[in-house]
């Protein structure tokens, strides 16, 4: 399955290897790994999501990328629940024959995931908890794919 939403961590080497397993027509694998930053004394980051919609939204983003670039494999894993600084939040892996398609599709998926997939981050700090504000720069990043 191309898309997973889960609390558990994942095996990066196995996930990357699976993108090209059993085939030799793949020349390029671009990946992105998002981590919890411990800025400003962050204690933990909790991710809420909209379970009935999340995988559907991610699968829709992957389908858009596959319609736009010649991709041989795509994998998206997004974690939810409480995560500590340094822990992984999201993995996107894209396999293609050539590097430009792999890089662009990987960045495209991240840009859409950031602005179109129903996840919300809440920061725990020594001063209390607060919801993370959406960033205008994330919405602006979509413009280059228009």
């Amino acid at each position, binding site marked *: 399955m191309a898309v997973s939403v889960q609390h558990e961590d994942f095996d990066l080497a196995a996930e990357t290897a699976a993108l090209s397993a059993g085939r030799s027509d793949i020349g390029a694998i671009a990946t992105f790994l*998002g981590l919890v930053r411990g800025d400003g004394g962050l204690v933990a980051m909790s*991710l*809420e*999501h*909209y379970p*009935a*919609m999340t995988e*559907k*939204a991610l699968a*829709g983003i992957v389908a858009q990328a596959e319609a736009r670039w010649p991709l041989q494999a795509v994998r998206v894993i*997004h974690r939810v629940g409480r995560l500590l600084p340094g822990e992984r*939040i*999201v993995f996107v892996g894209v396999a293609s024959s050539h590097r430009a398609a792999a890089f662009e599709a990987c960045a495209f998926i*991240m840009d859409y*995931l*950031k*602005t*179109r*997939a*129903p*996840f*919300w*981050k*809440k920061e725990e700090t020594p001063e209390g908890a607060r*919801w*993370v*504000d*959406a960033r205008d720069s994330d*919405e602006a990043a979509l413009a280059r794919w228009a």
Partner: protein
Amino acid sequence: MSVKILYFASLRETLGCAEETLESLPAGVTTAGGLREWLCARGGDWSALAPDKAVRAAVNQSLAQAASPLAEGDEIAFFPPVTGG
């Protein structure tokens, strides 16, 4: 048929409500934006749905616009701009 409404993240906390079910669409409400206005008119905490607030909507688990049409049986969700990834 009933209509299910979900609230997420800071909006869920502000409203003190994760989910509610209406027995049917309120009279005159035909769009996601219309439902938002109707909910906002409850006043108090519900003014978190006012037009000047950054609120997103989904109808049947797909992102929706204010003009997106509603039908009986739909699942509508309201939430703040997403912050995953």
